[in-house]
């Protein structure tokens, strides 16, 4: 599930899985189901979804900084500048090819 960060690169279009599992996760609700572009890739880091519940955090996950257009996130609720952006760090297994 998700993408393998080793197979994507900066500039690629990705979608965020629109799911809300019962366990701890660090994907904000407002980007779920949205589409953005990879701005940078870092890690891999221990997976907090495992560590938060006493797990070992393995396998490690890459972290993708994904840039969204604010208007793509909030639609008409975004009343500022059309060019404004939002950068959110999302683990690779939360992303799918755009």
């Amino acid at each position, binding site marked *: 599930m998700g993408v393998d960060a080793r197979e994507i690169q900066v500039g690629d279009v990705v979608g965020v899985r629109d799911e809300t599992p019962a366990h701890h996760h660090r994907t904000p609700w407002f980007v779920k189901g949205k589409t953005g572009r990879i701005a940078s890739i870092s890690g891999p880091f221990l997976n907090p979804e495992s560590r938060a519940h006493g797990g070992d955090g393995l396998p490690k996950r890459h972290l993708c*900084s994904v840039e969204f257009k604010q208007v793509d996130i909030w639609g008409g609720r975004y009343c500022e500048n059309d060019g*404004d952006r*939002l950068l*959110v*760090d*999302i683990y690779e297994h939360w992303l799918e090819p755009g």
Partner: protein
Amino acid sequence: MSDTPAHPGLQHHVPLPGRAKRAIAIHRLLVSKNIVGPDEVRETIDRARRRTPADGARVVARAWTDPAFKARLMADARPAVFELGYRLSRDAELAVVENTDRLHHLVVCTLCSCYPTSLLGQPPDWYKSFAYRQRAVVEPRAVMREFGLHLGEDVVVRVVDSTADLRYLVLPRRPNGSEGMPEAELAELVTRDSMIGVGQARNPA
């Protein structure tokens, strides 16, 4: 030690006594299960309190005056800040985002209160407030105006939500009129708020 008033759980500005009691209970459990050492939490808090925004300001001033350092800082911040003697926590990596005439970064953590404490010390209370965390992503320009920062229409605002293992430091735009100033004086222009993005660096007197 968990019973003394010096317990780190009581040093937080937590309004509810119930939450303080819970923090003490959790701390006792962590110590009794050898997950943290008896003094580890206090030492971690003490270490964080020794850091102040002056540390981040020194990094910014060096980046303004030394292009090679700035390139290293933007590419891989951990070894770059270590050159200045700052050892980042192993808990998270540091990423630096640069503000220019055309692009302005504002940092928030919508999920909790992630903050580059290794370079800026403890975050201000407003950074941890629900109001800031909710509004910064939806109406960043309105939030910045409340801090006194009015950005032009030709400036793109890029909000950075540090949701995970990266902590973000804003490299503010070097103020006009600061050409030729020595690094130590430049550092005095760099405010905490300018490194979060709710402000700009001060103009030279």
